[in-house]
């Protein structure tokens, strides 16, 4: 395998953003995901290869370590930041159609609910696995999800709710989304929600954690 790609993968895995970044201490002074990605593209490595042979495998490893409780969220966040700094360089190729993203994921905490720590984590990990993520924030109403779907046809939607009194809002939102676009996949999550509830309200998938959501989305992308 290409040495440069390996280096980029390492930067992602250990969260080395760019040359100036002080984290991680043992990579101080070295080039990061930012510089190395730029260099790779300049050397003629295809953006597709950078994405699929370095960035995504790097994030996969991070995700794996996180699942096994070997690293903490801040470490994962550093990797996500490194990933973003690389993605900047790949972005233009998405637009030109040269590289394909897995898909678009629209996420938000449902109306009436302000809890967003969990939702943010989910958004970040899904982005790290190669999806375009549109984060609508908190207290999000049906129309906002639908608006986002209109702008991103074929996107999947994620709803988060932490209150027993807002999980009920999920139901209406699912109905609204499905009546706008029958085939749009809707994922739900949050502390009071579970698989039963998911089935009852006609959503497509419940996951107790970001990893499950990533796995499900990736199965769609195949």
């Amino acid at each position, binding site marked *: 395998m290409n040495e440069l790609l390996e280096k980029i993968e390492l930067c992602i895995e250990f969260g080395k953003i760019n040359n100036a970044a002080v984290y991680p201490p043992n990579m101080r002074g070295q080039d990061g995901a930012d510089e190395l990605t730029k260099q790779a593209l300049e050397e003629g490595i295809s953006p597709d290869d950078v994405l699929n042979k370095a960035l995504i495998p790097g994030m996969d490893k991070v995700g794996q370590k996180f699942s096994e409780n070997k690293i*903490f969220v801040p470490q994962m966040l550093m990797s996500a930041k490194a990933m973003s700094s690389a993605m900047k360089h790949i972005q233009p190729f998405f637009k030109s159609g040269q590289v394909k993203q897995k898909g678009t994921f629209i996420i938000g905490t449902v109306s*009436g609910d302000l809890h*967003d720590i969990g939702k943010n984590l989910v958004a970040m990990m899904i982005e790290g696995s190669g999806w375009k993520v549109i984060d609508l924030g*908190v207290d999000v109403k049906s129309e906002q999800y639908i608006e986002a779907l209109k702008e991103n046809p074929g996107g999947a939607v994620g709803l988060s709710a932490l209150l027993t009194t807002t999980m009920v809002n999920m139901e209406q939102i699912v109905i609204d989304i499905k009546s706008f676009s029958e085939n749009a996949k809707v994922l739900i999550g949050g502390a009071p929600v579970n698989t039963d509830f998911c089935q009852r309200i006609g959503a497509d998938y419940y996951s107790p954690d970001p990893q499950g959501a990533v796995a499900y989305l990736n199965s769609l992308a195949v």
Partner: protein
Amino acid sequence: MKFKELAIKNPGDLYFGTAPNPVKTPRGLVIGGGNIYPELNFTLPEMSINKTDYSAVLKQYREIVTGALDHAVHLYSDGIVLELETLIEMTQIPQMGIDIVKIMNEICEENFIKHGLKSEIRLTPNDLREFERPPKQRTTKLIEPMMELFERGALAGGNLLSIESTGGKEISDDALMMCDIKQFIFSQAVLGVRDMEMLWGKIVAIAKKTATIPGGDTACGFGNTAMVLAEKKYIPKVFAAVARIATVVRTLVAVEQGAKGPDKDCGYEGPFLKAITGIPISMEGKTSACAHLSPLGNVAAACADLWSNESVQNVKLLAGMAPTVYYEQLQYDTRLMNEAIKGGKQDILQLQKLFVNSDTFYDPQAFILSPKSVIEISKEIVKGENYIDATKRGCLKGLELIENAIMEGTLLRDEKEDVWIEMLKSDIASIPENESDFVELILPTIDQSKVILSEYGL
């Protein structure tokens, strides 16, 4: 920092059921007066407040409180606190919250007259201000309904006033996820403290006006969020332990402003507050597993004056409705502690020893809650020149105790966390004690669109 000395100076004097400054309530509870009482917490099951008719919501609360108090009489309770922690709608439309308080109070009063059951309502409106992002902590209109609920709810029977306020959360959420202790301390010792001063000034004034008791606040959204994240293994336990200590001063400000206790259950800074100020506190441990799992199920009881289950939905379990079930569990827990109290100080300390030692070995978050740790850390806190200094001192002392305990083998070592102890120490040490220096240090590191500093008087 008003408190310069500890109200309780020795670990041996910090125990459950007794506080230097007990709080007497209208229906005869003496909280911290040599008895520990259950504090029952409950919430609605899956339902939409807006779509259900109003009476269905009221009916839920009537059912919950009737069921719990019937059972309290049946189990020969000598007192109980019921918390109404409102859901958003009940604060947005204060009349809804007030109507619920009325119903609760009616049932309390009935049971008092008929059976002599002593019960009291803690009214906890929620902090609506976070609905606006960035929040306008001082200038928002959302303060109005909150204060209306406080005032009219107090008159309707909400005799203990509390809130779980959220000043500083704009910064703390991200700080927790990034494990940035400098930002986190900034959110507490600068933003939190300033917001508490403003907010608790108002609440204490309402309590005076309505002749009710200003209870206290809780750093739930900070300390317990850290704990929940640590329980999910998302952040290091040692980070959560230090974050907990960092929440003490902001909650302390409520007492400086005139809060009398019991402070609110869902943070674990209570023991520090009790040591520093002598007010009675509410704590939650194993019996709040319904609301969140935790590494401190027993140690949490060490110096509690109220013993709470944090929150349980009104759903049906095999034995009956969940709030009644949880009331029974709290009742047996407190019966045990009260039995020790009957036996005198030695029995109390003996039971406390079991509570403490059974948890402290396993987790730094439990470790810092032992009466010994609490007193040592509190001593450092009151030495602080100002809130920032106090927080730094408390956190560093906590880290020192944790390190020593790991070395001595009295606290389980988790290798994955070793590096964090070092990082935390140097990060905390690098914080300037001067507030404006601290502001300058932090500003460039945060997303400034998320916070409006002028809303904190900065």
